[in-house]
């Protein structure tokens, strides 16, 4: 199942494996609003309304539950289906589309009522300190903590959950997760699915039958998604819905199963593992919050769970601090914990832009990022950058984010004058991946090393070179400073060896630091060696072992034919070179494979060890029959039959008792801007979606509200094979530019007829933010869908273009608003209500007049679209 992903176009190299699976008999189903190059080679394309995937997947869950098509033995043993919730929990079924704990005034959930029911709580490992002596957070402080978004923290494990809740393995208790789930998804009937998603009931039935028939003891089904799922105001819950389905069908931790998140470009996975995100530290450790994690002890107490490998948060955190600050980090000074910055709220890229506009954020580094084209509400991005003191752009070429001050769209409209822009822009040419050593981490969590093929030309330098030498120079300037605020910089370990005429830092030395070492400087081989006393240093605990024995493991390239089918000797995957996560679930509770056909790891009773084709993702010598004592904590508290070792209860979560800002179960909410009312619930939108109000970021009225008919169509943005993201790596190259030489929109013949759009002519697409022009491709591949009895036309917008380069055009992101998923702060660019009209857009100030006229017609005010 490929859904929310155009894998063939956006991941053509990885797609070779889909084609190989197909050649071996796999059935490929593509669910997508558009018929793409992926659909062209799929066995079935299911056209779906953009923004309706939860309804679609919820329908499959309902089908599996009501037709007894789930994998019962797996569900009872390995998921939290049997877990009983407290009487305080109220579902969307009871509360008109919101969950218990909803604070409508502050648009936040109190998650207390979502917890498991249970007896005595195990002491959390971290609660060795007098955390309870600390004054409790005020309500306002608590809200700030929640807003900073803890969804990504702890990886998939989420926040603390009760490790030993009450259960009912008959799954009949009215408050057990299984029964809650059944009631919750009962309204996602095939008829409702058809009404909401536009997928005909017969097509939907075929998908349900295919997916469930291909799951169970002998068969597994895999899901593939990309930003078609994530870029929504309910993006995280899209993936949650798939996770519930895959857990019910027994498709997690087993070969041929899983949910593959295809990343947007090379090593995006790496950039969350070793994050470029504001709210996590390497290895998914939460970034400390100013109001919750004052010192190391309170941090550990708050972030450690009682059971499983997150019980060792202290070991991971202390080792990280030791890798940052080396000898300066001691037990006496909390291992320099106070050197870490603190969160005071959400500091995502979009809040940062508003802070730039407000004059609070003064400087900006762009490493291979082109927000003037690639980020939502591109105008706001440029206005933010125009209000900085300084801006550093590191890229291959003069992208729009480097030149907006002289030739950006706002110069033409008169909104900005070059002479008035105070931002000092530094453009520093960057080296390409072929010009530097380093690693890529792919969607399988596999690190693969790449070596310098050619030296960078001219002034181009690697990002590593830039970061290292910038740090070195700053440290030189600060040397001798007595100012305490300079200590975090001066105490950093910053001693990477450099080589060659460019003084290039050794990437392998960085890998060595990430891998970690003991007090003798010997490389570590596993995160289980990490210590809390400061005797180990490790830059990212999940990457520990990547340089085991001092060998660059990601550089291994043993051909597949010279090893088994799991190919563990090609590259290196975290954690501990395990290729399939939670693979203990590929064996039954007794440790035997669910079927020979799907055998992956199993318990060897003679050797008293887990063994198999893959490295077992489990405690190597833990017998399947092992049950922890009541007082056991941490890793010792993991039962021999609990495969999900990162979860606080060892189970796959059908119901998420903690960790998600917008509810323990997924709910179909309409996008921020939708022509339709929510047919499934009274609640129109995700009530806790993040709204960033700004005069430059007006929202449109939705479904049935006065003025919503002004924007009757739904636009969805995407990529083409021929270009790369915001175009910096493709629009400037002749061989790529000529393959897709103009920004275009894709529309159905029906929409073309309705709006008078001419094939290969021009169209103007308008939202409350901006208007853009595009060439028109009229194609049967765009099909109108029937939603709620009405025909909906969708408009396809590839987002690669901007004003610079060999092929130039308007940026689709000019149209997008900033209404974000509350867990991960991602923009909703996959479903945007819009209008489309024939002809080119107005030039100069007349463009602003056009947008204002739309705002007036739709009756848009500062309040529009901001309701919970």
């Amino acid at each position, binding site marked *: 199942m490929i859904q929310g992903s155009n894998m*063939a*176009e956006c991941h*053509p*190299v990885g*797609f*070779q494996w889909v*084609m190989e699976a197909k*050649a071996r*008999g796999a*059935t490929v189903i593509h669910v997508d609003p558009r*018929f793409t*190059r*992926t*659909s*062209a*080679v799929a*066995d*079935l*394309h299911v*056209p779906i309304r953009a923004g309706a995937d939860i309804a679609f997947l919820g329908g499959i869950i309902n089908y599996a539950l009501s037709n007894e098509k789930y994998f019962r033995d797996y569900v009872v043993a390995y998921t939290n289906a049997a877990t009983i919730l407290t009487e305080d929990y109220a579902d969307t079924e009871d509360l008109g589309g919101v969950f218990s704990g909803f604070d409508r005034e502050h648009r936040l959930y109190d998650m207390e009522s979502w917890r498991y029911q249970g007896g005595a709580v195990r002491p959390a490992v971290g609660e060795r300190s007098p955390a309870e002596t600390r004054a409790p957070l005020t309500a306002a402080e608590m809200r700030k903590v929640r807003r900073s978004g803890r969804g990504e923290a702890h990886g998939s494990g989420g926040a603390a959950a009760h490790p030993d809740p009450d259960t009912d393995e008959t799954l009949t208790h009215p408050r057990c997760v299984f029964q809650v789930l059944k009631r919750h998804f009962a309204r996602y009937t095939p008829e409702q699915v058809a009404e909401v998603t536009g997928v*005909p009931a*017969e*097509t939907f039935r*075929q998908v349900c*039958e*295919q997916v469930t*028939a291909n799951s169970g003891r002998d068969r597994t089904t895999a899901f593939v998604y990309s930003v078609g799922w994530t870029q929504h105001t309910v993006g995280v819950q899209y993936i949650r819905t798939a996770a519930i389905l895959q857990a019910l069908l027994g498709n997690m931790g087993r070969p041929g199963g899983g949910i593959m998140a295809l990343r947007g470009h090379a090593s995006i996975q790496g950039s969350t593992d070793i994050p470029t995100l504001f709210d996590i530290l390497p290895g998914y450790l939460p970034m400390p919050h100013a109001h919750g994690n004052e010192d190391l002890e309170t941090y550990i107490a708050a972030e450690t769970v009682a059971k499983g490998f997150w019980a060792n948060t202290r070991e991971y955190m202390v080792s990280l601090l030791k890798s940052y600050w080396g000898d300066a980090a001691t037990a006496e000074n909390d291992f320099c914990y106070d050197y870490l910055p603190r969160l005071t709220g959400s500091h995502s890229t979009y809040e940062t832009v508003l802070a730039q506009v407000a004059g609070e954020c003064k400087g900006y580094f762009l490493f291979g990022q082109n927000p003037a084209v690639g980020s939502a509400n591109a105008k706001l991005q440029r206005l933010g950058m125009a209000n900085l003191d300084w801006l550093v752009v590191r890229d291959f070429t003069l992208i729009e984010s480097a030149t907006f001050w002289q030739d950006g769209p706002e110069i033409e409209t008169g909104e900005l004058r070059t002479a008035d822009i105070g931002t000092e822009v530094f453009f520093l040419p960057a080296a390409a991946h072929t010009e530097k050593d380093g690693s890529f981490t792919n969607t399988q969590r596999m690190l693969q090393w790449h070596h310098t093929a050619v030296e960078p030309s001219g002034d181009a330098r690697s990002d590593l070179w830039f970061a290292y030498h910038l740090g070195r120079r700053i440290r030189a300037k600060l040397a001798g400073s007595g100012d305490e605020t300079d200590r975090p910089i001066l105490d950093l370990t910053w001693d990477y060896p450099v080589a060659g005429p460019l003084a290039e830092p050794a990437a392998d030395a960085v890998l060595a630091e990430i891998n970690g070492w003991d007090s003798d400087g010997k490389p570590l081989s596993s995160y289980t060696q990490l210590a809390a006393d400061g005797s180990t240093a490790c830059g990212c605990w999940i990457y520990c072992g990547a340089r085991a024995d001092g060998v660059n493991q990601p550089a291994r390239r043993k051909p597949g034919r010279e090893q088994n089918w799991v190919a563990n000797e090609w590259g290196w995957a975290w954690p501990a070179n395990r290729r399939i996560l939670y693979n203990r679930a590929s064996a039954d509770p007794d440790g035997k494979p669910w079927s020979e056909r799907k055998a992956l790891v199993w318990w060897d009773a003679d050797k008293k060890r887990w063994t198999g084709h893959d490295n077992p993702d489990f405690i190597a010598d833990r017998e399947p029959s092992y049950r922890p004592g009541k007082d056991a904590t941490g890793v010792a508290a993991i039962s021999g039959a609990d495969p999900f070792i990162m979860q606080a209860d060892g189970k796959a979560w059908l119901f998420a008792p903690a960790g998600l800002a917008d509810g323990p179960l997924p709910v179909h909410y309409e996008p921020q801007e939708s022509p339709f009312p929510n047919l499934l619930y009274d609640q129109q939108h995700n009530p806790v979606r993040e709204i960033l109000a700004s005069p430059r970021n007006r929202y449109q009225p939705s479904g049935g509200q006065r003025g919503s008919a002004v924007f009757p169509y739904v636009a969805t943005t995407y990529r*083409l*094979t*021929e270009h790369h993201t915001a175009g910096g790596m493709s629009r400037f190259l*002749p*061989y*790529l*530019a*000529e*393959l*897709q*030489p*103009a920004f*275009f929109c894709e529309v159905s013949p029906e929409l073309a007829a309705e709006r008078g759009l001419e*094939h*290969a002519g021009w169209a103007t697409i308008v939202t409350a933010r901006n208007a853009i022009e595009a*060439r028109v*491709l009229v*194609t*049967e*591949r765009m*099909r109108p869908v029937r939603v709620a009895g009405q025909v909906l036309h969708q408009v396809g917008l590839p987002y690669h273009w901007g004003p610079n380069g*060999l*092929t130039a055009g308007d940026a689709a992101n000019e149209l997008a608003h900033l209404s974000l998923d509350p867990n991960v702060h991602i923009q909703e660019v996959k479903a945007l209500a819009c209008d489309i009209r024939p002809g080119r857009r107005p030039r100069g100030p007349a463009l602003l007049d056009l947008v204002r006229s739309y705002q007036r017609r739709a009756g848009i005010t500062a309040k529009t679209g901001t309701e919970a």
Partner: protein
Amino acid sequence: MAHAASGPGPAFATGPADAAGGLDPAASSGYADHPPRMGFFTDTSVCIGCKACEVACKEWNAVPADGLDLTGMSYDNTGALGASTWRHVAFIEQPAPAVPDSVLPDPGGPIAGGDGVRWLMSSDVCKHCTEAACLDVCPTGALLRTEFGTVVVQDDVCNGCGYCVSACPFGVIGRRESDGGAHKCTLCYDRLGDGLTPACAKACPTESIQFGPLDELRERAAGRVTELHEAGVSDARLYGADPADGIGGAGAFFLLLDEPEVYGLPPDPVVTTRDLPRIWRHAATAAASLAVAAILSGAWRRP
């Protein structure tokens, strides 16, 4: 570079046979001991239209970019093969055939519904014909048959006369305005000599473009057609694989999912020089007469 027979003449009226019973063009061209005939099998049923072949070809062969025109022909902005396009991916949007082109295993049964659209993609290339008209008509010997049985233009010999352009039954070869010469796919002759796979096949992520000894490719292709027929894809057929066709079989042949015309390929290509032997006999007679006359007149003697 190996010397090869070229130029006009009844080159392939008779000659050594290859394993499939077709003509062995390298042997016919005078290579007594030569490697197996190499070619492409382009299986369009697995093409995802990524155009990596087009880019890899241009990168390796330093073929210039040739224009930023939005053609409006689906995702095909390349248009056609030519002097600066040696691989061209065609995109054909059409109503889905009445018979579903795929069959799902039970319990789903044959896929019904869908959305009635089919999107065919096919990477076209020089056919490296067994009977190559371009080579037949070339007056300078710039076009040559290689030891691999492929057909290559030598840039430094080509005088830009353009005879080959009109002779090609597929419209593959073209003259480039910037240098006046004729250019087309060389099947990466330089890479072949080093035992490397041609750039396009190397870059193809789905093995839609397969490179290898032609005999093996033909065998593999026949198996693939059978496989597709068994899977219910009754329209699958080979194009250019038959040594008995009008060009003696192509060195680069295709698996198509529809009539060749749909892809912009001639349904029944014939070597345009088929009638040349007869024409040349007349021409030779005339030339001989002229030569005799010249000798008799002593015009060839230097003073």
